């Protein structure tokens, strides 16, 4: 039991009142400790982050993310005659549906317990800001998802090319980088680099094949081989 009586004596509180003050002190101490543990518990349950990402106390937004992820795979044949893998069979993801922003906001509102209107405002605001910042050359890191950034495609220039264009260029003494120009850039594109957590989730995905589709393909294949045999 906590006893703060020496402190009360030091503060000049009479002895007969110290028992009452001690009860109040212990009660407040208990409330503070309980509140602290509840906050930590909430953080773990709802995956909130109170500590910085590099801290050992950091709780990842997608840690403990229980997932029964399954992706449907459909099969297709390579029909490109120029390809060395012509007529080979490959698998590709058969997407269930395209989730529109409204549906995503409804899911997120349900998850967070915050009004859908507020979720929609934040979603729109963050994405608009993301587009603007990306076009200013700032990469954007979304904790628990990955990094978006701009990549560029450029024309390659050799030392001989520079010599042809600039006769004054001396490859032995001059720095070639002085003669290179930003006009070499041909186009820009958007890049997405998933975080380690997302990569782990992707590795855990199970594949599900559409048996009826595959059976029909196999039947066609069987009939083709039967017709070729005689």
């Amino acid at each position, binding site marked *: 039991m906590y006893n703060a009586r020496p402190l009360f004596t030091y503060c000049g509180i009479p002895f007969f009142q110290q028992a009452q003050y001690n009860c109040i002190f212990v009660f407040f101490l208990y409330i503070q400790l309980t509140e602290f543990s509840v906050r930590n518990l909430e953080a773990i349950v709802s*995956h*909130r982050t109170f500590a910085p990402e590099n801290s050992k106390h950091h709780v990842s*937004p997608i840690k403990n*993310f229980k*997932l029964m992820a399954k*992706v*449907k795979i459909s*099969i297709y044949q390579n029909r490109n005659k120029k390809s060395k893998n012509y007529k*080979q*069979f490959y*698998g*590709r*993801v058969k*997407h*269930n*549906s*395209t989730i529109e922003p409204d549906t*995503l906001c409804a899911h997120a*509102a349900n998850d*967070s317990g915050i009004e859908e209107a*507020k979720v929609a405002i*934040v*979603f729109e*605001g*963050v994405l608009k800001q*993301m587009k603007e*910042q990306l*076009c200013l*050359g*700032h*990469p954007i890191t*979304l*904790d628990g*998802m990955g990094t*978006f*950034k*701009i990549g*560029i495609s450029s024309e*390659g*220039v*050799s030392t001989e090319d520079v010599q042809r264009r600039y006769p004054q260029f001396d490859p032995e003494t001059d*720095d*070639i*980088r002085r003669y*290179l*120009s*930003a006009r*070499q*850039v041909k186009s820009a*594109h*958007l890049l*997405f680099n*998933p975080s380690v957590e997302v990569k782990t*989730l*992707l590795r*855990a*995905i199970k*594949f599900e*094949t559409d048996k009826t589709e595959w059976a029909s393909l196999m039947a066609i*294949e069987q009939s083709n081989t039967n017709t070729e045999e005689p």
Partner: protein
Amino acid sequence: MGTIRVTPVQNKISTSISYGKWYMMAKMDQPLTVEELGSHILMDSKIERAQVSEIVRAILRQINELLCNGHAIRIPHLGILKVGVTSTGADTVSEYNANTNIKGVHIVLLPDKEIKDELAKLHYEKFYYKDAHAEMLALDAAEAEEGNG
């Protein structure tokens, strides 16, 4: 209209057909976080800072969950996010096995027209910090020598 700083880099892959050629590479700043992006929303609306972070985290959780369950997601102003697979080929349908032929899973980002148009309008500016810094030091040294002389 944005300006992207680009810096010259040399291809040093000895097996590449473009070995030794010089290319431009985008020079990126420090990545921005959700908190920094969300700061302007706090000014525009009456939503609290904690709620903005909570909403963004909920959205990201949902995106991850939906992606891993085979849904494509339309992200406004950016494009469509979906899962793709890398697979080896099989000679016949019966020989193809998804669990052994699929070698990797990745996320595909298909940019929409809006972001493509914005990217087409970008300007580029040549920048290489190390050399600029070295030149500045050389100039300082030359000036100091002149002063001493």
